[in-house]
């Protein structure tokens, strides 16, 4: 399909770009964020994969104080405060399990958009009915339909199970 081919071409060009770049450039933010180097382990937030292939903040992207904290992690964890433990967690993982499970309110936007456009379409249809369509054929007028119905009864249209079968010919009324 066209979209998958375009995707592959985009991916190939991004792969070539990251192969060409040196490791020094890898940390730079001059590139568009969409470029993902799929040849290295990726981080992901998944409920069924508690420990992803790499930490969220890569080791060489840690700040100086984060690196100090990582050194402190090698000693007894009892010496770490709650904030430090939380900081270590957030360095390695982007989202906690409750955050992963949270979901969003996007469905409200979607539903609202659907109703809005349905309403707009309704306005268009009404306008069309009033300003575009001409009169309805005269054969749908009450007078014509009356005469038509009487004729159908006289002709015994579908007398067994259909139209005329609903007419009581003795009492001259509908059954």
């Amino acid at each position, binding site marked *: 399909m066209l979209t998958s081919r375009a995707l592959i071409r985009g991916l190939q060009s991004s792969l070539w770009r990251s192969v060409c770049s040196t490791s020094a450039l890898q940390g730079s933010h001059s590139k568009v964020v969409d470029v993902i180097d799929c040849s290295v382990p990726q981080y992901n937030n998944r*409920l069924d994969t*508690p*420990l992803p292939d790499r930490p969220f903040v890569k080791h060489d992207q840690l700040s100086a104080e984060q690196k100090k904290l990582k050194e402190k*992690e090698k000693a007894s964890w*009892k010496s770490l405060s709650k904030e430090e433990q*939380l900081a270590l*967690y957030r360095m390695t993982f982007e989202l906690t399990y*409750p955050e992963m499970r949270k979901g969003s309110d996007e469905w409200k936007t979607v539903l609202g958009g659907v109703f809005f456009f349905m309403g707009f379409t309704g306005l268009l249809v009404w306008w069309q009915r009033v300003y575009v369509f001409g009169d309805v054929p005269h054969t749908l007028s009450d007078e014509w339909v009356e005469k038509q119905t009487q004729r159908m009864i006289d002709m015994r249209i579908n007398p067994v199970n259909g139209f005329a079968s609903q007419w009581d010919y003795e009492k001259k009324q509908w059954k």
Partner: protein
Amino acid sequence: MFRSAVRLTCSGVRSLTRTRPQFTAPLAARGYSHGKQETDEEFDARWVTYFNKPDIDAWELRKGMNTLIGYDLVPEPKILEAALRACRRLNDLASAIRILEAVKDKSGPHKEIYPYLIQELRPTLDELGIATPEELGIDKV
């Protein structure tokens, strides 16, 4: 294939990590209808041995945990203790906390499992100095 006896999804879960049924229900680690079925104890022992490897590396820890979470069960406290100690050997506190989060999530609607696990793991948590997700406040959004 007696997984139904010990499945979490079975509504008959009375006790906690895995039901201890009145009859011996071997937990098949593989779906053979023939051949020797692995018992619960063998399964646990296998995993405890896996995590107790003294020179376990980070990849093996991740692989082990991800595989274990993929099973239709909540791991016994002794397996989790071995995993937490493996995290300690690898100087990885974040993974230790993540493991606790993962088993809580794994318990699903059976809310009594996680407190039991924490109760059983309390000595290890205190010894290693691991804070639970609740203590860090990340159990709520």
